[in-house]
C-alpha cells in the first residue's frame, strides 16, 4: 500500500502506517490526518512533534501516561483534563491515531 503526496508515493503498511519514518514531512502528515478525518491544528502539530522527538530519543512510542503527563505539564492541566484534551485531538485513541499521523510505526503495545 502507499499514499500519494505532491506527486511522490510513500509506502504504508496494511494499517496505513508510514513504512519509513524518515520519509515523513508535514505534507505527509496532513495526508495521513486526512485519512483519519482530522484537521491539523497547532495543538495537533505540537503533539505530533512531541511524539517524533520521543521516538527519536527512546526508539519507541511513548505510553499514553507519558503523553498525558507531558500535555499536563505543558498546559498546566490536571491529568483528567489532559486525557480529555488528547482524545479531543485524536478521538480514536491518542496512541494509535496520533502515532500514525506522526509517521511512527504501529505501536505494538506491551504484548
Amino acid at each position: 500500500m502507499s499514499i500519494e503526496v505532491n506527486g511522490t508515493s510513500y509506502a504504508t503498511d496494511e494499517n496505513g502506517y508510514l513504512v519509513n519514518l524518515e520519509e515523513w514531512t508535514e505534507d505527509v502528515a496532513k495526508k495521513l490526518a486526512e485519512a483519519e478525518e482530522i484537521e491539523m491544528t497547532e495543538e495537533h502539530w505540537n503533539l505530533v512533534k512531541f511524539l517524533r522527538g520521543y521516538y527519536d530519543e527512546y526508539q519507541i512510542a511513548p505510553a499514553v501516561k507519558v503523553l498525558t503527563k507531558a500535555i499536563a505539564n505543558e498546559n498546566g492541566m490536571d491529568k483528567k483534563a489532559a486525557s480529555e484534551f488528547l482524545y479531543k485531538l485524536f478521538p480514536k485513541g491518542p496512541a494509535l491515531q496520533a502515532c500514525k499521523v506522526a509517521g511512527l510505526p504501529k505501536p505494538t503495545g506491551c504484548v
Partner: protein
Amino acid sequence: MSKKIVVLGGGTGGTIISNNLRRHLPKDWDITLIDRDDRHIYQPGMLFVPFGIQKSNTLVRSRKKYILPGVNFVIDEITHIYPDKKEVKTKNHKFSYDFLIISTGCRIVPEENDGLMDAWGKNAFSFYTIEAAEMLRKKLKEFDGGKLVMNIAELPFKCPVAPIEFVFLADWYFKNKGIRNKTEIEFVTPLPGAFTKPKASAVFIESAKSKNIKITTSFELNAVNGKEKYIESVKGDKVSFDTLVIVPSTIGDNVISESGMDDGIGYVPTHHNTLKALKHDSIYVIGDATNVPTSKAGSVAHYEADVVVFNIMSEIHGVKPEEIYDGHSTCFIVYSKGTSSLIDFNYKIEPLHGKFPAPKFGPFSLLKETKMNWYGKLGFEALYWNVLLAGRHLGAPPTLVMAGKEVG
C-alpha cells in the same frame, strides 16, 4: 585488579544472569547482586492464588538459596545510580562497576488511579502482589453472584495474558461453585482487542464468547467509583461492577527515575536487539525494567539474559555487542484448572498455531487449549526453581524458532 559486575535486582532476570555470568567468567571477575530483601516470589503462581489452586505461602523462597556461592549477594536498598561515575549507591554501601545490569523490574501503583484506593480491598481487588491475591481469594470465596469486571488500567502492564487467564479461570471457578448462571463476567481493556496480536486476539475472543464473557475494548480508564460501583473511561463511558479486579497503573523502579535514567515512567530506554541502555555505556537492561516492546514476563527476562551474557562476554573480549534479541516471549495461557493454551512470538512474528518446542511432536500445542499444556504449566514451576534460575539452558536458543509453526 579484579573487575566488577553489579546486578541490580534479584528477581527472575537478575538471578538468572548472575548465575549464568558466574559460570562463564573467570574468578578475577566479581559479581555482586543487590536486592532489598531475601524474598524471591514465583510470580506466575499469583494468578492461581485467588482461585485456591495454589497457596500463597508456597510462592516465596529465599533468593540466596538460588544464587550460586560465587556471586556476592547483598541485601540493601539501592538509592542511586551514577552512570558517569560507574557507581551505585545503596543505603549502606557504594559499589563501583565495569558493567552494570539493571533488572529492577516494575510494580503496581494503585494510588495512581483515581478513586481506586477508596475501593481497595472493599470491592476493588488485584492479584499482582501476594497480599492483593490473598485478599481477592477471600473475596471470591464469599462471592455468591453478581457482576465481576476485570479491568486493565493502562499500558504497559506486567504479564499481558494474565487478565485474560483471570476471566477464563473465573468462568471455570464460578461454574464449579455452581453460581455461573448468577454471575456476569466482563473484560474491559484499553487495547483495541483482547490482545494486541490479531491472530491470538481472535482466538481469545472466540474462547471468551463460548464462555459468555463480555469484552469491552478501547476503554482508557479515568476513574474508579467504588461507592457507586462503576469505572469510567476518559471518554465518559461507564461500566458497572459488583466486584472489580484491576491491573492498576504499573511503573518501573523509583531508583531508575530518581537517577534520571527513565523514559518518563520508570523504564530504562534500551536497545531492542543488543539490550544495552541507549544512553549509557557499560549498562545492560533485562526483564520488566526495559522499555522494549515485548511482554513484561519471566520468559522474556530468561531469553534476554542469554543475549546479555553473550554481549558482555563479547565486550570483554573487545568485540562489539551483537543485535541478537528479537523480542522472543513464550507464555502459557491457563483456561481452567486442567487446561491451558500456549503462545510463542517475538517483535515481528505474532503467535501462530503449531507445536512447541519440537516441530510436529510438541508435546505442547500453540494457540490451542489442551490438557498437555496444563501439565506443562504445572511442571514449569519445578523447572523454574531448579533449572532456569540457575541460568541453565533448556536446549533452545533465546530467539524465536519458526519450525513447528503454521505460517499463513
